[in-house]
């Protein structure tokens, strides 16, 4: 028909795009990671800081000469949480020879699970994706490398038990965003409620959660002993604000890993004092690794972003994930120093991470062929008005219940794909 103009444009784009791919493959002594992430839609609240941490850590490694003389190249792009874009980015990463993809988005991670397995590319799904991906036997190429939401819920309940001695007869309210992500911890909470004898009440709010004024009066009237709120971005700040307005004591309110300093700014730093969160890695600038980054990367002005963000919770999550990925590379070189560098090769390395604590930034983490979660250790931190202070040491809890759920769900997955 009449598609000449389109064809010319497509032809030009085609020629233009074909060249860089081939060039990239020609480079040697380079290990490629692809970080197509959501900078502009649902995950904006975390991505900028997370990505900044990742890039700064990779700069640190490269500044020290890389790993075995190999430089790490991270391709950052924006997929806007839109699947066709994410699939394009994934295919591009694959064509360019990336051996690891970190999409930081639950829908994207879910859509990539099967492709990654078929293409043997390691898919990092930290704090996103399928919780049952912790089962390395069913999902050999998917690595959460971080405590999944089931573990986080289990840790919170165990912390409550530690505080109150016994949860029998207590009431816990679970306020969550009404999406698959928000509903995820419910089976664990229900299992624990049955086991430990507390009563559980759930309150779903509709996404994005900018209006929860009808939820919290009900929570207040339920007179709970503990409140867990589960959401992300806007939903978190609104939940916390409403909790304050309804006079719920802050030191009985807790959330997952999705709570940051900037959320506290929005709610009001002083007013939020006491609120609890799950902390998968140390926050602040004091950990040695962050100090190294400041010295080697930030001070020579090679940082990837705003200096003020260095050491925030989400920045450190980024550093944590980059450190784990690179530890995987290191282990891969230990196992097969001559490569060839491939998804398979890195997979073996990631599975060999053992007792790695990133110089004190993260709990000792061991990844095995069966456990891609890395042990499920975290600590609970409390907001003191200016920063998150650890309230416990690294610990893991209720992993039996969590793994029961993981096995159940991954078995379902296995059964569904013939």
């Amino acid at each position, binding site marked *: 028909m009449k598609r000449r103009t389109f064809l010319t444009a497509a032809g030009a784009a085609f020629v233009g795009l074909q060249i860089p791919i081939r060039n990239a493959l020609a480079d040697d002594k380079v290990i490629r990671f692809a970080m197509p992430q959501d900078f502009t839609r649902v995950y904006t609240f975390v991505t900028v800081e997370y990505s900044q941490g990742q890039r700064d850590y990779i700069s640190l490694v490269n500044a020290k000469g890389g790993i075995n003389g190999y430089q790490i190249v991270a391709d950052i792009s924006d997929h806007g949480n839109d699947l066709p874009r994410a699939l394009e980015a994934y295919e591009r990463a694959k064509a360019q020879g990336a051996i690891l993809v970190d999409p930081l988005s639950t829908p994207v991670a879910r859509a990539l699970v099967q492709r990654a397995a078929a293409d043997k590319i390691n898919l990092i799904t930290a704090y996103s994706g399928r919780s049952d991906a912790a089962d390395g036997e069913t999902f050999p190429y998917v690595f959460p490398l971080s405590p999944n939401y089931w573990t986080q819920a289990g840790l919170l309940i165990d912390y409550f038990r530690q505080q109150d001695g016994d949860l029998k007869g207590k009431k816990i309210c679970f306020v969550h965003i009404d999406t698959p992500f928000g509903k995820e911890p419910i089976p664990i909470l229900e299992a624990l409620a049955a086991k430990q004898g507390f009563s559980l009440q759930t309150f779903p709010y509709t996404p994005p959660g*900018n209006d929860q004024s009808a939820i919290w009066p009900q929570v207040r009237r339920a007179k709970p002993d503990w409140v867990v709120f589960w959401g992300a971005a806007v939903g978190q700040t609104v939940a916390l604000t409403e909790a304050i*307005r309804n006079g719920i004591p802050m030191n009985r309110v807790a959330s997952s890993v999705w709570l940051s300093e900037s959320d506290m700014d929005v709610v009001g730093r002083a007013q939020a004092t006491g609120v609890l969160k799950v902390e998968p890695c140390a926050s602040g600038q004091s950990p040695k690794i962050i100090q190294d980054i400041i010295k080697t990367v930030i001070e020579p002005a090679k940082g990837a972003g705003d200096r003020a963000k260095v050491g925030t919770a989400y920045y450190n999550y980024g550093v944590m994930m980059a450190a784990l990925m690179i530890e995987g590379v290191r282990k891969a070189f230990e196992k097969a120093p001559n490569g060839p560098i491939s998804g398979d090769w890195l997979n073996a390395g990631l599975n060999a991470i053992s007792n790695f604590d990133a110089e004190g930034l993260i709990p000792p983490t061991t990844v095995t062929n069966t456990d891609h979660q890395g042990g499920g250790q975290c600590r609970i931190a409390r907001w003191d008005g200016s920063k998150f202070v650890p309230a416990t040491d690294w610990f893991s809890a209720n992993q039996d219940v969590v793994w029961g759920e993981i096995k159940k769900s991954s078995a379902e997955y296995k059964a569904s794909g013939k």
Partner: protein
Amino acid sequence: MDASLLLELAVNGAFIGMMYALVSAGIVLIYKTSGIANLAQGALAMTGAYMAWIGGTLIGLPIWVAAPLAAAVMFGIGALIERFAMRRMIGQPLIMAIMLTMGMEIMLRGLMPGILGASVKKIDIGIPNAPIILGDILINRTLLIGGLISFAMIVASILFFNSRLGVVMRAVSDDQTASWSVGIRVERAIAIAWGLSAVMATTAGVLWGATQGIDWSLSLLLIKALAIAILGGLDSIPGVLIAGIIVGLVESLATGIIDPIIGGGSRDLVASAIILITLLIRPHGLLGREHIERV
């Protein structure tokens, strides 16, 4: 079911409905003059909130200076949008002009967070979080004040449409070509509508931004606002006020009554059902004017 809980939900729901209605009123204002449903209204609210943040936090002005200043700037921006974009769409198919506003929505969503940073910004409008407690009932102070400000602005715009300038604006909405033919400066009328609408958006953006923080997600206010505008009848500002209160009330009560039964967030579902049923009974919304059909 606890009666005092229902009362509490109803009161707070009505106020929050008025805050939604303020965003909708901006949509109606533009629809009434140019027949275009402005899909960038949420993005304008976001932009206005960012403007207030620039004034309040970056420059350091007190909020009662920064917010009106932001509104004034936004009036100008609204007028500029008419000058450089909407003006060229006069006489073109409406759906294309609506699409243009959607392009604008995408653009604004890229512009403000791109320049100012994507992380959530705080804006403090000085309303204390401490609630007002009447017996067993807790009234959310932010919602109360926000709802009252919204109510005042909506009433002001109702009065505006009955003035002489208002008659001209209504004439423009009826038939732009005919308005031109009798010497009405159609562009100017539409520019005023855009400017006023941007002012309303700014107010709404600041009020909502104070609760949820300022980031791109303020532009999501559009969906609910559009639903309320259509429920009220796209060209009726009183309709918007009534629809806003109805939606706010029903959503709030549904959360209290239906959620525990079906175990899910029924708010949007109930709102959708109300909209569907209303439209089937009254195809032009609650107070919308009927399309006069002559062959």
